[in-house]
């Protein structure tokens, strides 16, 4: 079955969980840091995305704790989620490699013009 590419917020969400389990606010701040401040997930969007990737079996609940009277639930990447992220990374890497190669050839061609 051909897989659709991951959307960027989903890609960043899975990337945030690749290092280890994180809670909602942790994911939110991590996604912003990974994207250099470009992608800011709001709480509603974050939980709708978590709901979707959990339904697809890419992410699952890890543990809960209460901090300052507030419930925190941690999420972790499932093995399936890890595979999906790895496949996406490979896809992006291949695309980037081809793009870089062609840009290099283009520079050479332009540089080689009289």
């Amino acid at each position, binding site marked *: 079955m051909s897989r659709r590419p991951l959307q960027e917020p989903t890609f960043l969400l899975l990337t945030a969980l690749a290092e280890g389990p994180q809670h909602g*606010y942790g994911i*939110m701040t991590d996604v912003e840091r990974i994207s250099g401040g470009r992608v800011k997930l709001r*709480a509603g969007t974050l939980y709708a995305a978590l*709901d979707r990737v*959990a339904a697809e079996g890419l992410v699952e*609940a890890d543990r809960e704790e209460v901090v300052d009277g*507030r*419930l*925190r639930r941690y999420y972790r990447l499932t093995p399936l989620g890890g595979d999906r992220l790895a496949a996406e990374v490979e896809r992006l890497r291949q695309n980037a490699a081809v793009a870089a190669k062609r840009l290099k050839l283009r520079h050479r061609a332009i540089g080689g013009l009289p």
Partner: protein
Amino acid sequence: MTAAGGLEGGYRRLLRWYPPSYRCRHEEEILGVLMAAAQPGQRRPSTRESLDLLWSALKIRMRMTLRGADSQPWAAALALVGVLLPLLMLLLKLTEFLDRGAQYGFGSPADILIGAYGDPGAYAQSFQLNPHSVALKGNVTDALTAGPLPALILAALACLGWHRAGAVFAAFVPLAYLGISLTSGYTLLAGPRGDVTLYAYGLEALVLLAAADAARGWRALRWRPSALLAAATVAAGVGMNGGLWPLFHAAPANPASAFRRVANVHRLASLPHGFIDRTFGIGAGGWWRVWLVYQGTLVAVIAVALVTLLVSSPVNRRALCLLAVPFALGAVIYLCSLISPPLPAPVGNTLAAVPLLLILLTAMALSLGHRPHAGPDIPGRPASPGDT
């Protein structure tokens, strides 16, 4: 009230838009994230935060409906409607058939299956139908909408739980009708009764694809005798009053008064009357009595049946909303057909065909986008013991 208290209350009010089962598991958690992400001194949710939460609540609701855990009322309602709707259509066709047959004769078995009657000429004349509608092409379109055969096939497929075959058939019927009607130059707006049937079949295709439990077939009805009873009552009420005609019939010769066209009292007096009228001989009375007997009885019977359904359970309430869709669309089409001067045929056809095509397109999107989901832990469901 403190700023934090006001802010938290604001967030909680927005979180009420999420489905109850989702809130039960995630409300405190999301609230924690919202409060942690709030600006210092923020007193109430910002517009963007509010829109984000409302939009996400809508997405989660739609997803949970389509995902269809059995505990979800919408999923159970979809499974229920998947079986109930073709049964309701079948009952409507049968009661209407018995009523018409009693007046015009039952004809040959083939006529019965295509919804024609012993004396099609008299039947067509009494409704001022286009003579073509009982001729060759008309036989096919009548078989698709007026006859009981499509409803019978669909009810059998739905009850057996063959939901994919049922969905394909349910989509085929209205599309075939549309194709034949439009190439034959019929004006769809002129036949709101047929439109209700078409929308019902279109909706059935959608429901059979959307309901995760559609494969259970007739078992969806097992604990819902009230729903079946209500459907039977509505069908009996409609059939005994001479079909949906008293509600869905416009008098083309009298464009002057919208009320008279809606109530349509003079036409009613000359319409073939239903079982109630023939039994009690009320049709000879004044026009207001005719109106009262036809519209009044029909509306009262339907209202009682629907209220019974409404109050009985959340699943039935949702099923009722779904069942109302084809009738509501039919009513809109009916009101459009009353516009004076009448709409040009292309506009009328578009008006009548677009809702059906939208329903069928949604069904197609569902069937293409339907992927198995086997996530072991979905937010909104209890965590498995291994998670902690």
